[in-house]
């Protein structure tokens, strides 16, 4: 990471903190909610960026993990609300509204889903990989639609936002703080992975698979590990998104959701650490500004995406920071 990119990242990190604090002081809860949404969607993008940017794995199925995280939160909360246990045999599992517990379940469930779907999808590459991940995502989408126990098409409501020990999550700025810290942790983890031996080999396998094999490293295992870590981070984002909206629905599993997460990454800059943060911020900004002008604001988004892909391959971050990629 060059000096300039570091500076841009710092500005982004501080900006994402200053805006909600300003909004808090000036009693603008809607702005806080918007920045919370940016942080959560950025987190989902950070997950995808590990697979897409570093691993070169174009997954069109990350909505699957986003949805699994969301439904982990929704299902556990709904059982806690109705006092009906999830299961009673062979042992009783109660619902919960504790965020840390919900996150653990979301992390575990999305990791498991990523392990199984990754193990199968990674046997293919290129366009087949895109199609298989898309198919897995759609399987979950249609499954939740036709699963009446948890709302089917109508989704599930979380009447009271889940709790975090010591905080009042109903206060927007406090819930924002949770998402901000989790995003920070995820960025730190991904930054370290990118500079590790695993990251070096994963990135090399994206560029030249033959080379990695010839030094005695199996690319498949690297990619599977990356896919699992990637899916887990996006799964956590899904659990937070459910709590933000206090609602989950099959839309979280839709391929449009996968596409949006990918748009954050591409807009902000593929393989750039803060790419998804910049991308998610720009996306929400456009949605607010252009969405206020026209219901068809996506057409402007489409044009912007086209410009980025054609003229600024490094996305927003690449445009501002230039090519510079350090070697440590």
């Amino acid at each position, binding site marked *: 990471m060059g000096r300039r990119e570091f500076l841009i990242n710092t500005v982004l990190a501080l900006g994402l903190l200053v805006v909600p604090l300003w909004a808090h002081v000036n009693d603008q809860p809607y702005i806080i909610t918007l920045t919370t949404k940016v942080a959560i969607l950025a987190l989902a993008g950070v997950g995808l960026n590990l697979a897409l940017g570093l691993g070169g794995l174009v997954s069109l199925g990350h909505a699957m993990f986003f949805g699994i995280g969301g439904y982990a939160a929704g299902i556990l909360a709904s059982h806690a609300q109705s006092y009906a246990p999830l299961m009673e045999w062979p042992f009783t599992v109660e619902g919960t509204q504790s965020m840390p517990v919900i996150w653990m379940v979301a992390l575990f469930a999305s990791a498991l889903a990523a392990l199984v779907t990754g193990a199968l999808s990674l046997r293919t590459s290129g366009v087949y990989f895109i199609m298989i991940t898309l198919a897995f995502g759609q399987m979950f989408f249609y499954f939740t639609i036709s699963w009446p126990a948890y709302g089917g098409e109508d989704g599930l409501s979380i009447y009271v936002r889940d709790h975090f020990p010591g905080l009042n999550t109903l206060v927007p700025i406090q819930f924002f703080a949770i998402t901000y810290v989790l995003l920070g942790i995820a960025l730190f983890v991904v930054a370290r992975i990118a500079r590790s031996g695993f990251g*070096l080999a994963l990135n090399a396998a994206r560029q030249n698979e033959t080379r990695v094999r010839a*030094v005695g490293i199996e690319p498949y295992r690297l990619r599977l590990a990356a896919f699992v870590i990637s899916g887990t981070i996006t799964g956590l984002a899904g659990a937070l998104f459910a709590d933000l909206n206090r609602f989950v629905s099959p839309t979280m599993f839709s391929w449009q959701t996968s596409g949006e997460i990918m748009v954050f990454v591409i807009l902000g800059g593929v393989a750039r650490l803060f790419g998804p943060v910049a991308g998610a911020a720009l996306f929400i900004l456009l949605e607010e500004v252009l969405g206020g002008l026209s219901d068809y604001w996506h057409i402007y988004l489409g044009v912007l995406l086209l410009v980025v892909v054609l003229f600024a391959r490094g996305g927003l971050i690449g445009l501002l920071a230039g090519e510079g990629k350090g070697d440590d």
Partner: protein
Amino acid sequence: MTEPLLHIDGICKSFGALKASDNVTLDLYPGEIHALIGPNGAGKSTLIAQIAGSLVPDAGRVFLEGRDVTATDTVARARAGLGRTFQISSLAMEDTVLQNAVLGALGARQKRLGLFARVMQDQALRDTAMEGLRQVGLDEFAALRTADLSHGQRRQLEVAVALTLNPHVFLMDEPMAGLGGEGSALLVTFLQQLKTRAPILLVEHDMDAVFQLADRISVLVYGRIIATGAPDEIRTNPEVREAYLGEVDDEEGGG
């Protein structure tokens, strides 16, 4: 006689009616450079692919240091001590020269890859990588992006990465290609020293280099080894002259 480090025993491979490898037997002994030559389409690439593990032979076996590795893939053979360079440079082009060399050192370590430790700050890996680069004369270009290297420098980096693997056997596929006179001469000197560390199976089109370097030469024609021997024997072998050396002037590129 000592045991061969690499032993190829009666390998056969057909593509339809074409016999690309026809009962090929080949040995590589410690300390030697064994060159494999043959006209275009003789089946050199097919043979290399089977030695490296990217192609499974129809029949026959491959032994590395006495171990049967016929059923293993390229990853396992690299781990078993086969270090190869490619005919077409096979490098991580966006990475720096040093990163490519560190990748080799990392693979040679054969441990679980770290998920959090900064790999480029691992002194042992850096030392191995820099030593490899120094030996081929690329150490001053360590911080350069690989894509910014010249063609010849990329060939050198191929060799450097193979060195970081500290292999027991080298498999070099046209390391001289595109090097130019001075570069080839340097590499010839270097390979002569290198063979004492690990023997080299050398596939090369540069006949001057081959006859200068090789302790033994095998000639592959239509998938069959028609002769194996010292350079002088090969030069005077009438069958070889007829099949191959007569056309050496208009010899170009792959095979």
